[in-house]
């Protein structure tokens, strides 16, 4: 109809058994603009944009691309109509090279024969444009999460799409990479590409977008002009209430004389010679760039991977956990970074997910106590404000944020002494973030727990930590006390190994 919009989603409704994910949502994208899409976890952002590619088939509604009307799309139609999408979950083939992933589904070919060399050359150019050093021949499985995301971005850009949809592209990226991504986004905007940008990081929204569309509970709330809007207003629209602070205050409860975990020259899993101490009641932040080896360190502490050498002392005793089970029994928990792959058990219920680590403990003669199981799940559903119609709901039917809350609930239930949070708020909305921060504070303040927090968000790291340790390429490059926290210092340490 009108040529005013390049993409219109009209009255989209999407029902899942037991859940209405989208109720009558309408979105309109103007040529050459960046439209930000925001909303709490489970608001339906990802579901909405998946309708544009056929990854989700809407129950009802229309999709109009450049005046052409569709009741549903397919990935082919989307690509023919100039739509490219970066999904929230990774969509790559681990056994293929970066170059082949870049050209997945549309290889450079002569007849039926592919031209590998041309693809590798093109890929090298694309990566260069993003200021990243990725070998086009490297297999995807050997790249870090951050690099994999950069390949996704390069892939979307490479398609020369007229409409680019990005679902939380910055979540796995460190600030330097976010910067190079922004450069590309700005360039594309200048070239007349229309962009939908989804993020929970409001500063990114303000920096990039022209307009902001707010969603809540699967419904359209309001569209605002970015430069005329206020942060507080946005948050209120998103969560339906007012929030004042980004980081809840915490009284100092660090017991300097009680060391919970001490690492002495721990080496292995890509890390070398890591020595640090975590005190009781402390939140120790672990910072660094992509590939710094933080996740790897967490895996060793948690027993998921064995260390090669060095010592780990937990509550005064030397430990060497051979499996997560051993670590859990000692009182260590890990909230993993990749929640779909390592955290949530998608095919089973919320109740079972929360109880999983404690079934054995709470069973008599192997038989489960159903009442207790239900009570525990109920308690943490309330504590964590998990949005669900029933505890028997399968976790795969929850939004990303709510899945994260289920995993957090699991470790609360397990009553661990040291909890490692690997990117705890990755892809989580401001409202839920605040709740998770409060929870973390409560854990150290009132429940005598200790936290090791890995985060790529500089602000979160500085806002939450009592101390920060910085890693760079598997080496420990710096340790900062609260007074020394500045972005510049952390960045210097973080790139120390790379600069050498």
């Amino acid at each position: 109809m009108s040529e005013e919009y390049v993409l219109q989603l009209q009255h989209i409704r999407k029902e899942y058994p037991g859940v209405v994910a989208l109720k009558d949502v309408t979105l309109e994208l103007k040529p050459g603009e960046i439209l930000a899409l925001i909303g709490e976890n489970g608001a339906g952002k990802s579901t909405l944009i998946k309708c544009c590619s056929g990854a989700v088939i809407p129950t009802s509604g229309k999709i109009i691309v450049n005046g052409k009307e569709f009741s549903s799309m397919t990935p082919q139609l989307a690509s023919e109509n100039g739509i490219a999408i970066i999904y929230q979950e990774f969509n790559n083939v681990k056994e293929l090279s970066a170059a082949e992933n870049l050209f997945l589904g549309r290889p450079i070919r002569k007849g039926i024969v592919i031209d590998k060399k041309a693809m590798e050359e093109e890929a090298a150019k694309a990566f260069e444009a993003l200021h990243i050093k990725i070998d086009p021949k490297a297999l995807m499985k050997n790249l870090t999460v951050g690099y994999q995301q950069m390949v996704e971005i390069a892939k979307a850009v490479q398609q020369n799409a007229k409409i680019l949809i990005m679902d939380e592209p910055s979540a796995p990226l460190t600030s330097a990479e976010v910067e190079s991504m922004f450069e590309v986004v700005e360039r594309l905007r200048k070239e007349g590409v229309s962009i939908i940008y989804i993020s929970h990081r409001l500063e990114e929204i303000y920096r990039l977008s022209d307009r902001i569309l707010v969603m809540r509970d699967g419904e359209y709330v309001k569209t605002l002009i970015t430069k005329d809007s206020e942060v507080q207003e946005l948050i209120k629209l998103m969560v339906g209430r007012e929030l004042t602070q980004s980081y809840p205050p915490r009284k100092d409860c660090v017991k300097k004389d009680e060391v919970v975990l001490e690492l002495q020259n721990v080496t292995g899993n890509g890390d070398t010679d890591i020595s640090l101490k975590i005190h009781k009641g402390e939140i120790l932040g672990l910072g660094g760039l992509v590939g710094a080896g933080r996740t790897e360190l967490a895996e060793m502490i948690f027993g998921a991977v064995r260390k090669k050498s060095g010592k780990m002392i937990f509550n005064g005793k030397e430990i060497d956990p051979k499996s997560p089970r051993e670590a859990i029994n000692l009182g260590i928990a890990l909230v993993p970074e990749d929640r779909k792959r390592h955290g949530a058990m998608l095919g089973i219920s919320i109740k079972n997910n929360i109880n999983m680590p404690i079934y054995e403990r709470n069973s008599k003669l192997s038989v489960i106590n159903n009442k207790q199981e239900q009570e525990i799940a109920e308690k943490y559903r309330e504590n964590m404000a998990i949005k669900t119609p029933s505890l028997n709901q399968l976790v795969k039917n929850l939004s990303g944020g709510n899945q994260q809350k289920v995993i957090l609930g699991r470790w609360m239930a397990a009553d661990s002494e040291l909890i490692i949070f690997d990117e705890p708020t990755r892809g989580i909305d401001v409202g839920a973030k605040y709740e998770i921060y409060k929870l973390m504070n409560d854990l150290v303040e009132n429940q005598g727990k200790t936290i090791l927090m890995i985060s790529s968000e500089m602000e979160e790291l500085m806002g939450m930590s009592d101390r920060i340790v910085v890693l760079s390429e598997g080496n420990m490059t710096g340790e900062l006390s609260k007074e020394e926290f500045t972005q510049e210092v952390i960045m210097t340490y973080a790139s120390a190994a790379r600069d050498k």
Partner: protein
Amino acid sequence: MKENKVSRVLKDQAIWLVFIVLVIAFTIANPRFITMNNLLIMLRQVAVWGIASVGMMFVILLGDIDLGTGSVITFVNILCAKLMVEFGVNMYLAVLISLLASTLIGLLNGFMVATIGIPALIATFATQTAFSGIALIMCNGQPINGFPEKFSVFGAGWVGPVPIPVIIMIICFIIGAFILNKTYFGRYFYAVGGNIEAARLSGIRTGRVKYLVFALSGFFAGLAGIVLLSRTNSGMGNAGLGYEFKVITCVVLGGVSVAGGSGRMSGVVAGTFIIGALNNGMVLMNINTWIQDIVLGIVLVLAVGFDCIQKKRQAN
């Protein structure tokens, strides 16, 4: 949730519905089909598969598969027969040793799958190949018979009007349902089958779970082998040939996903009964063996296909 429960019951009923339709069809074709006597005979005929299907279901829940079932049945057949006849071992002791041996074969599978990391399809296929050779060597290709009179109780005895193998099968089904729904390791089966990495990071010793499941599969196959031996009253070097696929068919017909992580015991019971009804009913109807094969293939596709289409519709 309510809706969820209703649709779950309906799905469960779908497979039972297939069973009822079959029963009606066969009864129309030959009224003798529905006699209590024939129904019990039918159950007795599937007892061996039903018993083995409990263990197989656990394995399939993990997303694995056990192709060794047939060989374990054969091996136990020969081992138990040899112990009783050639070594004069007391009948109960022979049964015990045989069950132990079959559990050990299961553990061997568990070792290959969990510790070495060989895909279950390959590991259990190797077990199948090797143990069918071993069984034949042990019996030298000859049937073994002359068991104590009492031994026939497992396969051919009765409690009132009910054949003992049927009772054994039902007990196995109940144990299976209990393990899956009431015990913590039953929960682990679903967790490991659904997402093994997440299960491991939740503190589940996934290796042990695999060992346990394969051991149970070996055990139930062994028990099936004992019942078969008692039923035929003769140990044969190829007694269990091809049984693994019959058992897999029962499990899969029952709606257990070969991808792992989902399935219910009641479905497997229905799947087993369907196979029983088909086998028995088609013979009653005097249908040519080759056509029986074709019918079996078609029923399998229809039942599983129907399930898949439903799931697809739900997912969209």
